[in-house]
C-alpha cells in the first residue's frame, strides 16, 4: 500500500478499515542468501538497500527484541555531515544526501528536518579548527557556514551572550543538518524492506555462528538454526558480545550514553545547537520536547542506564548556554549502549572469517550514519567490495596506522 495524503483522507472517511500491517511477522526460513544480525536502524537500512538497490531476494533480518529497539529507538535524532577527516566526511555527506531523499525512497515520512546545526566556538583556536573543518566539508561537497557572534545571536538570541564563563564568539553551521524522527527511520526502512520481500524476524536472538573451514554457514538462533550464504552483523552496542561468538576481539568498548527530553513546550529552539565547552547539545522535537545530551558516562557498560553526575553535567551545560530553559522540566532520560571504537570512527568490513561481515563501532554517532551505513554495508555484502565512501572503515587500519581520529585523543574510547 502506498502512503499519501490522499490515502490518509480516504481512510479517515471510511473508518480506517483499509490499513494493513506495516510489515509481516514471518517465520524464519531454513536458509537465506544473506542474513543480517540486528534489526536496528543500520540492519534495517542494510536490508532495505540490499533488496531495493542490490536486488537481493533472499534476505532476512534477525532481531532479538522488537525491530528498532536498539539505539535507533533512543537517540537525539541529529543528522549532520560536519566531519573533518577525509576518511569520514564523504561518507557522512553521502548519508546526508540519502537522508534528503529518504521519504521519497521509502514512502514513509521520517520527518527529516533540515533546520541546521551550529557548533559554537569560544576561542580563536576553536574558530581556526572549525574553519579547517568547514573548508573540509565544502571540499567534500557538503555545506558549511562560519558564523560570527552577531550571526549566532540572530539565529539563537536566547543564548547566554552577556554573562558567560565561555563567551560565544561564533559558530560553524551546517544549514542542511537537522533532525529526523528516529523511530520513523526504522519503520520506514522496515516497511520498505518488508515490501520488497525481506523477512524481518523479531524476537529471534542469535546465539552462535556455525563456522566450518573458516567459512560461515549460518547462525544458531533462539528460533533454530538459519543457514546463510553471508552473515552481516550490525548490532552496535553489542558488537563485542556478538563477534565474540565468532571468536573475534574488536577494537571496541561498550559505553553508556544518556540522552534526555524535557516536557513539551511551544517552539523555542530553531535547529540543533552544540556547546562543546559545556558538553551539551540540544534540539526541539516536533512535539515540543527539548531533546538534549552530552558526553558518555565514561565507563564500560552494558546496563542501558547511566548515572546522575552526567545528568547534572549535561544540564549544567544547558543552563549555562541557555538559562531560559531552567523553568522547563526534565521528563525522561535514557541510556543507550555505544560501540566506542579506538579512534572514534566506525568499521564496515569483511572479517577474517569468510562470509562474515561486520558493521559497528559507531560511537555515539550512528544515527546520522544510518542511510549510508546501510547502503555501504549492503554494497559490501552484495558486491564484496567496500563502497567508495566507506573504504577507510577497515579493521586493519589500527594495525597499519591509518586511524581516523577526529578528536585526536588516541586509543581511549571514552575520550572520543
Amino acid at each position, binding site marked *: 500500500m502506498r502512503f499519501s495524503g490522499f490515502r490518509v483522507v480516504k481512510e479517515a472517511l471510511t473508518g480506517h478499515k483499509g490499513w494493513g500491517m506495516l510489515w509481516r511477522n514471518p517465520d524464519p526460513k531454513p536458509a537465506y542468501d544473506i542474513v543480517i544480525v540486528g534489526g536496528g536502524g543500520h540492519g534495517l537500512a542494510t536490508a532495505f538497500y540490499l533488496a531495493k538497490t542490490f536486488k537481493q531476494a533472499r534476505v532476512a533480518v534477525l532481531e532479538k527484541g522488537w525491530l528498532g529497539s536498539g539505539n535507533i529507538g533512543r537517540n537525539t535524532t541529529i543528522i549532520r555531515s560536519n566531519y573533518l577527516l577525509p576518511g569520514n566526511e564523504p561518507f557522512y555527506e553521502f548519508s546526508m544526501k540519502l537522508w534528503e531523499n529518504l521519504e521519497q525512497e521509502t514512502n514513509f515520512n521520517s520527518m527529516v528536518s533540515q533546520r541546521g546545526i551550529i557548533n559554537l566556538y569560544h576561542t580563536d583556536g576553536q574558530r581556526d579548527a572549525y574553519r579547517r573543518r568547514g573548508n573540509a566539508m565544502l571540499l567534500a561537497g557538503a555545506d558549511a557556514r562560519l558564523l560570527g557572534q552577531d550571526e549566532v545571536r540572530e539565529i539563537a538570541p536566547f543564548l547566554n551572550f552577556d554573562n558567560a564563563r565561555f563567551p560565544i564568539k561564533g559558530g560553524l553551521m551546517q544549514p542542511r543538518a537537522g533532525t529526523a524522527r528516529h523511530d520513523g527511520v526504522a519503520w520506514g526502512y522496515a516497511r520498505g524492506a518488508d515490501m520488497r520481500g525481506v523477512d524481518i524476524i523479531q524476537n529471534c536472538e542469535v546465539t552462535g555462528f556455525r563456522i566450518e573451514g573458516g567459512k560461515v554457514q549460518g547462525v544458531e538462533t533462539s528460533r533454530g538454526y538459519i543457514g546463510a550464504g553471508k552473515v552481516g552483523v550490525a548490532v552496535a552496542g553489542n558488537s563485542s558480545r556478538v563477534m565474540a561468538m565468532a571468536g573475534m576481539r574488536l577494537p571496541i568498548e*561498550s559505553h553508556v550514553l544518556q540522552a534526555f527530553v524535557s516536557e513539551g513546550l511551544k517552539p523555542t529552539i530553531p535547529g540543533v545547537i552544540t556547546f562543546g565547552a559545556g558538553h551539551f547539545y540540544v534540539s526541539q522535537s516536533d512535539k515540543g520536547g527539548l531533546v538534549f545530551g552530552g558526553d558518555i558516562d565514561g565507563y564500560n557498560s552494558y546496563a542501558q542506564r547511566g548515572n546522575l553526575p552526567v545528568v547534572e553535567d549535561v544540564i549544567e551545560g544547558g543552563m549555562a548556554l541557555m538559562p531560559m530553559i531552567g523553568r522547563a522540566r526534565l521528563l525522561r532520560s535514557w541510556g543507550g549502549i555505544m560501540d566506542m571504537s579506538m579512534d572514534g570512527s566506525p568499521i564496515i568490513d569483511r572479517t577474517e572469517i569468510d562470509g562474515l561481515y561486520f558493521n559497528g563501532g559507531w560511537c555515539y554517532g550512528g544515527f546520522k550514519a544510518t542511510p549510508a551505513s546501510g547502503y555501504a554495508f549492503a554494497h559490501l555484502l552484495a558486491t564484496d567490495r567496500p563502497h567508495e565512501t566507506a573504504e577507510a572503515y577497515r579493521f586493519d587500519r589500527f594495525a597499519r596506522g591509518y586511524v581516523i581520529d577526529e578528536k585526536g585523543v588516541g586509543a581511549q574510547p571514552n575520550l572520543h
Partner: protein
Amino acid sequence: MLIPHPLLGLRDSQEFTYLGDAALMDRPDPAGGNAEAAFTDYVFLRDNPAGVHRELWFHEQGDRSWLVVTRDTVTHEILGAELARDVKLNEEGAQ
C-alpha cells in the same frame, strides 16, 4: 557510583578518572619478537565483556592511586577493588 577504595572506603566515582581494561597494565615486551603486533593488540583490542570486568580507575581527586576495580558491566555491581600497584607487584612477584 561508589568505588570501594581499599584504603579510604566508599568514595564517589566522580573523584575518579576511568581508563579502561586492566589489561592495559600488561604492556608488551618492546624487545620481544613481533612487538608491533603485540602492541597493536595491547593498544587497540579489548575483551569488552558483558559481565565481570577488571578495569582501571584513577583516584584523581583523591589519593591519586590507580585502582583495579572488578565490576559487572551489566549490573554495575562492584565486586572488589585493589591498588593497581599491589596487583602489578604481586604479578611480578609471582613470575
